[in-house]
């Protein structure tokens, strides 16, 4: 595995692709649930970069950081989904374009 030509460049390219797809989804999807899932994709891409560089420089602290990112993603998903349920209860929709209560009226 150490002598493989599959280097960090390969993994970071995959991470860049996943991050780009996730960012596009977060920007262009209308359903707030899909926006949250796209954010999970972006967090995953960041994790891949951490672990890939960790192998490049022989530091397994990156594994601990990836673990922390996962814990924070779990917390974010729990709170975000609870907020979505609250919004759905009062507005009967989670289309992000319809949730404009904080928009400037002018």
């Amino acid at each position: 595995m150490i002598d493989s030509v599959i280097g960090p460049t390969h993994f970071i390219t995959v991470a860049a692709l996943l991050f780009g797809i996730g960012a596009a989804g977060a920007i262009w999807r209308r359903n707030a649930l899909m926006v949250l899932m796209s954010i999970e994709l972006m967090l995953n891409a960041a994790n891949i970069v951490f672990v890939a560089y960790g192998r490049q420089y022989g530091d397994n602290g990156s594994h601990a950081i990836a673990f922390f990112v996962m814990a924070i993603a779990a917390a974010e998903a729990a709170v975000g989904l609870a907020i979505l349920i609250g919004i759905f209860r009062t507005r009967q929709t989670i289309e992000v374009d319809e949730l404009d209560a904080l928009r400037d009226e002018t």
Partner: protein
Amino acid sequence: MSAFFAHSGLDSVEGWFFYLGAAVAVVGALMTVLSRSPLRGALWLIVSLCSVAVLYLLLGASFVAAMQVLVYAGAIMVLFIFVIMLLNLGPDAGVRPAYLSVAKVLGLGAAAYFTFQIVTSVSGGKAQAVDGTVKAVGTLLLGNYLFAFEAISVLLLVAVVGAVVLGMKRLT
């Protein structure tokens, strides 16, 4: 032909597993973002997350790979699917109409350029052996990263309390 295989890493088992895992991860992510129904999107996201776990295994991070399957593909996605079924959402309006502006083109161009620079600037040199076993990472978590580890546990507690409070029916 054999030079191509050696150059692209397709002459080794790791190479094949990498390309398989990477392709499934990217296709799963694309299908997640493109699928109309949120439930199908969530199922495709599980496919993508599991293939990312394969990539972690190739990087020698067995603990992170196990956590990826358990925490991400297990716990977090179960939460998502539970909420999708609770809200009973049908296929949605999909993506909002995209229009091109100078700012978008400039931003995308800059992002692509910087990504290319980062990807191509990774220093060569041999990858080093890392110990990604539960024992090694656990020692690290309860040693060097003890404060962060405890802070994460407090954060998770706060998130649980916050989710319960947000999900409670208002008694008005």
